[in-house]
C-alpha cells in the first residue's frame, strides 16, 4: 500500500514537472509574438522603457498612423501581396498537379530519371539560382514587375508540391482511372474530372503552404521590386526600420506586423476545413 502511494506521489510530481517545463517552453516561444502584439498598442516611448508591461490602454494610434506612414498606404501593399500570392497559389496548383499527374499516371520515356532530377532540385538552395535567375529576368525586362514572382509558379518549379501530389495521386486506386478509360476518358479528362476532385486534401495543403510562403516571402520581392508602389507587405514592414541609423517607427512596425498575420490565420482556418473534409473523404474509400 505504501509503495503504491509513493508511486502515485512520484507520478503526480512528474506530471507537475512536465507541465511546468512544457508551459515554460511555450511561453518562451510565444513571448516574441505577445510582445509584438502588446507593443503595437503602446506609445513608442513605452515600448523599450518597459518591455514586459501589459499595455495600460488599447491605443490604436499606431495602427492608423502605420497604415498611412508611407507615400503609398498599406492598402497598396496588401493588394500587391494578395495579387502575387493569388497567382502563385493558382499557378502552383495548376502546374504542379498537372506535372504530378504525369509523373504518377502517364507513361513516357525517362519518367523515372526526370522524376529523380525533379526531386534533386529540392536540394538546390534558392540562393544558388538567384543570380542567374536575376540576370534572366533582367534580360527579359521583367525586373520591377510582378512577373518574376508569378510566372515561374505556372511552370511547376516547386518540386516539393509536385512530390506531395505524386504521392497522393499514387494512393488513388488505378482501377478508378481504368473505369474512366472504359467510360471513354482521355488523360486530360481523367485529370480534370477524377483526379483533381479527389485530391482536395493535397490541393488544400499545397494552397496553404503556397500562400503562406509567397505572402511571407521577403527575399524575392526585395530583389525584383524596387518601386514602392509595387512593395509587398514584408517589404513595407522593413521600411519602418531605418537602417541608416535614423529614427525607426517601432510602434507602427509592430501594429502593421500584427495586422499582417491576419490573412495567414484566415487562409489557414479556411483551408484547414478542406483538409479535414478531404481526409474524411479518403477514409470512406475502402
Amino acid at each position, binding site marked *: 500500500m505504501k509503495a503504491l502511494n509513493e508511486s502515485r506521489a512520484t507520478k503526480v510530481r512528474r506530471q507537475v514537472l512536465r507541465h511546468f517545463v512544457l508551459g515554460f517552453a511555450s511561453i518562451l516561444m510565444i513571448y516574441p509574438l505577445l510582445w509584438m502584439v502588446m507593443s503595437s498598442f503602446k506609445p513608442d516611448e513605452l515600448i523599450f522603457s518597459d518591455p514586459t508591461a501589459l499595455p495600460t490602454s488599447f491605443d490604436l494610434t499606431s495602427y492608423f498612423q502605420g497604415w498611412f506612414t508611407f507615400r503609398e498606404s498599406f492598402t497598396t501593399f496588401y493588394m500587391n501581396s494578395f495579387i502575387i500570392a493569388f497567382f502563385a497559389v493558382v499557378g502552383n496548383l495548376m502546374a504542379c498537379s498537372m506535372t504530378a499527374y504525369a509523373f504518377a499516371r502517364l507513361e513516357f520515356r525517362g519518367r523515372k530519371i526526370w522524376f529523380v532530377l525533379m526531386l534533386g532540385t529540392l536540394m538546390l538552395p534558392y540562393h544558388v539560382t538567384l543570380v542567374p535567375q536575376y540576370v534572366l529576368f533582367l534580360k527579359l525586362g521583367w525586373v520591377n514587375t510582378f512577373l518574376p514572382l508569378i510566372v515561374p509558379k505556372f511552370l511547376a518549379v516547386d518540386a516539393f508540391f509536385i512530390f506531395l501530389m505524386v504521392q497522393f495521386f499514387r494512393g488513388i*486506386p488505378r482501377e478508378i482511372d481504368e*473505369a474512366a478509360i472504359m467510360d471513354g476518358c482521355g488523360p486530360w*479528362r481523367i485529370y480534370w474530372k477524377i483526379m483533381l476532385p479527389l485530391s482536395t486534401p493535397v490541393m488544400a495543403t499545397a494552397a496553404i503552404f503556397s500562400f503562406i510562403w509567397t505572402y511571407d516571402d521577403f527575399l524575392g520581392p526585395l530583389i525584383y521590386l524596387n518601386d514602392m508602389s509595387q512593395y509587398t507587405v514584408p517589404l513595407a514592414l522593413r521600411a519602418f526600420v531605418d537602417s541608416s541609423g535614423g529614427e525607426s517607427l517601432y510602434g507602427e512596425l509592430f501594429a502593421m506586423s500584427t495586422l499582417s498575420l491576419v490573412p495567414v490565420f484566415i487562409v489557414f482556418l479556411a483551408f484547414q476545413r478542406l483538409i479535414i473534409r478531404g481526409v474524411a*473523404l479518403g477514409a470512406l474509400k*475502402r
Partner: protein
Amino acid sequence: MAELELQNVIKEFGGLRVIHGIDLKVEDGEFVVFVGPSGCGKSTLLRMIAGLEEISGGDVLIDGAVVNEMPAAKRELAMVFQSYALYPHMSVRKNLAFGLETMKVPKAEIEQKVQEAADILQINELLERKPGQLSGGQRQRVAIGRAIVREPQIFLFDEPLSNLDAELRMQMRVEINRLHRRLGATMIFVTHDQVEAMTLADKIVVLRKGLIEQVGTPLELYNTPANVFVAGFLGSPRMNFLPGTITSVSGTTATIELEGGHSLTTEIPNPPAQGEVVTLGIRPESLVPVPEAEAVLSGEVQIAEQLGGETYVYVALPHGGTVTVEIKGQARVEAGDRLFLGFEGGKFHIFGADEKVIRHA
C-alpha cells in the same frame, strides 16, 4: 451484342510471357467464365480484351474486326471491376451518367438510360447517394449499372463478387444470371471460384499458367475433364486422386493396382503399357460405403462433417493420403470408424503419367 474471337493471343511483361497464345471463340449472347487459380492470367486476358492492357502478339477480334489498336472506349465494352472502382466524389446518378456524358449523349437520353438501369437493379432510392454511403452489395449493383447504361457489345466482369460476403455473393450471382437472361448480352466473367463458374457459365474456360486447359459447358468439364488439373479444380469437395500402376493389359482391358494392394480391372480405349503409373480420379459422391468383401478402399474416418443434407467424410488410407466421401443424408459415421468404400457404377476417371485423361467415367 457481339462475337469475340481471340487468335493466338500473347502477353509479355518485360520479356516474361504470361499468356502463351490463346485461341478462343465467344458466341453472341454467350456467358463465358474464365476460371483458374490466381496468377493463371485470366484477369490479364480480360484486360487485354477490354483494351486496358496492350496485346503483345496475336489478335483480338470483335465481330470479325481486329481491335488490337483500338482504344478501350471505342470497343463498346463495359467492365465491372473487383473493387467496383466507383467515382467516390460523384453521386450514384453521376456515376451512372458519367460515361454517357463523356460520349456526349443528349441529356434527356442519359436521364432515361440511368432510370432504366436503376429500375433493373432496383437502386432508385440510392441515386443521390455517394458511393461511400453504400454497402458492398449496393456498390456492386451501381458498378453493374454503370456497365448497363452504356449498352455495351460485351460485358466484362473482373472477379466482381470476391469482395462480398457469402450470402450476398450468392444473391448477386443469381442477379447477374438474371441480368444475362434479360439483356441477352455477351458476357465474360473472370473468377477463381469454381462454384461461380459452374453456376453462371454457358461455357467455362479453365486457365492455368497462361494456357487454356479446357473449354466446355460446366457439365462437360465436370463429367469429362481433360486432365488432372481440370478434374481437381472443378467440383466441391474436390475429386479424389489415387495413384496406381498398370499391372496387366489385354486389348483394351487393363488391370490397375492401387496403392494399398487393391486391384481393379477396367476398359481403357488406348491402355498404357504394363508397369506405367496412372492416377485414378473419383468424385466424392461416387465413393460409396460397401461391405468389406466388395471394398476397393478402406480406411479410418478422421472427420465426419454433418451438413444436414449430406455428410462429408474424410477417410485416412492406410498407405498415406486421404479421400473425401460424400454421403447423401445424415450418415451415422464418427471419427475412428473403419469405412469400406467402393466405386459407384464405375464412375471414375483414369489419367496417364502426363496427367491427361485416358478413361472417362
